């Protein structure tokens, strides 16, 4: 397997993990909204909290994590841009 193919395999793997996390915080949580609301976080009902803040925070964190991970993959195979002009 060439270097490019290995790089793309890892990139695809990261993409699927990222989308799995996205699916969890974007959809799975809200499929069970009714039962989640009986629990609470910071005093908020849990489903309300996830909707108002929780999932939003998760998305921001996932994006920064994804950008760093992908940079590491690019560097591992020598495909990172040399300077940040």
């Amino acid at each position: 397997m060439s270097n490019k193919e290995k790089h793309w395999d890892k990139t695809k793997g990261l993409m699927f993990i990222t989308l799995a996390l996205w699916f969890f915080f974007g959809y799975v949580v809200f499929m069970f909204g009714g039962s989640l609301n009986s629990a609470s976080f910071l005093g908020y009902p849990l489903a309300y909290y996830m909707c108002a803040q929780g999932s939003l925070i998760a998305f921001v964190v996932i994006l920064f994590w994804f950008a760093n991970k992908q940079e590491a993959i690019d560097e591992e195979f020598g495909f990172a841009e040399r300077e940040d002009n």
Partner: protein
Amino acid sequence: MKGKFTDNLPKIYGLYTGGFAIFIILMAIAEQAGMSAKTIGIMFVAFTVVIYAVIGWLSRTVQVEAYYVAGRQVPTVFNGMATAADWMSGASFVAMAGGIYFGGYTYMAFLVGWTGGYILVSSLLAPYLRKFGCYTVPDFIGTRYGGNLARFCAVIVLVLASFTYVTAQINATGTIASRALGVPFELGVWVGLISILMCSMLGGMRAVTWTQVAQYIVLIVAYLLPVFWMGAKLGNPFPHLMLGDEVARIGELEAQFGLVKNAAADLKAAGVPGGLSSISVAHSEVPGGAMAAWKFISLVICMMVGTASLPHILMRYFTTPSVKSARKSVAWSLFFIFLLYSTAPMLATLSKLQLMDPNLATSIIGKSIADVQAIQWVQDWTAANQVFIADFNGDGILQLNEWFMRTGVVVLATPEIAGLPYVISGLVAAGGMAAAMSTADGLVLAIANALSHDLYYKIIDPKADVQKRLIVARALLIVIGAAGAFVASLRLTSILGAVAWAFDFAMSGLFFPLVLGVWWKKATRQGAIAGMIGGLGAGTAYLIYVGPKFMAMTPWLGIDHLRFGIIGAPVCLILMVVVSMMTYEDNAEAKAVSAMLDETRIPVGKTILGNK
């Protein structure tokens, strides 16, 4: 100042923010000295709009690269701010907290949908489109699939989605301009349009970028300041972390006052103006049943997938200096968006509590109607047809279902309701104007660029020189802006309806051609064309079938006119896959596409279109 322009940006915007703070303080002093509320409102809107126009003028350019993609040198974090302003429209700013106020948990599907889409943008599209080096979104489609027909189809989807969206934004600009300046709505629309064109005409993407950063600063200050101030007044200096008890208290008060849905006949008899609502949905309760969950999730799907297909957002990531910074920039964009979106439910909570909780001096529910009608802000907003009181049971006491407000009032009137000085209301008006203008700018530019670059330069007259291309681009900007203002002044749809439709159009026609264009080498030109035409066609047909103003048929499985992308996008995907499999041949063209995508998929090296 010395050094590269981009190195000085933090200093420049720091000074700008400081200057804006001084302006707010001066206005506060002027208010104490007796300046009228109306003058303060005019000063706020006029001062900020003039600043944007000056930035637009300073960023004028005659270079193609600067005009279309801001010279590809917008630093990561600043591009994040510009994207956030591009993204958060007048509707987000003015109507979102109000939507949550009336719609509760169900409405908050928009918060999740309008943030999660950025994960699709970053993981599937933005870095690859940046590496591709295109000027516009149809530029990618045209080059990846080859041929003018594919490019033309992409232009059609882009224009349809963005134009639907831009009328809503010009509508919002006009509403705010007319209220702040005290002119009729029809005139306000044209004032708004001229302000928008001043920001974009001379400098294209470069000018829009630097005004959007300035607009982000104004809008975020205007949104956060009143919420933190109100929170502090109620003893919660960090409302995001501390409002758990308040949310619970609203639940108690809802039980005490009772959530009543008024009958349409009663509303008509009492003469409640259209567009005003009373609270009839619980604040934090999740509605039961699989159908409610499906409606929530289907709306989230449409908004997320639509986010990743809207050209005015994707093109912001063409302006970063590198692929790496495009990825980081998406993360920063969402961070800046999060600051406002996470505050909207807090604003709705505080606002609701102030009106409902009998322990607070500001409350009106449960008080005598005569007393409530004597309050100054109630009189002002009643006169403007924004709030209404209907004593259905004739007991002279204001019940929860007898108090009506327009959704925008929650943001615009909350400072007055909470008894904050008028300078805050002026600031909020300037923030709303900034939000509506920045989005309208991005949209008008996306349409004009697609028409001038893809339709005129690539299809009609490939030999046109730089000067001629830029003249065409600017002329189109004026024509599109004027057409948008004309349609907006007719007020055909509600702002929310138009915004959701834009997402559904984009999702039906563009999402899969873009994503499969990067991720599936065997996607063919015929497949993409079939997908774009079929997806957009199916979505539009379904919209006409269920749209309340069209055939108004009963939706299937709760897929109403806000969610028609649920029909369009799968049709697009199936057509694209089937037709691609039928037409794929392992010939020289397929090999060239494969080599091109191999280059697209790694950050290092020249852009595909070679204009780095």
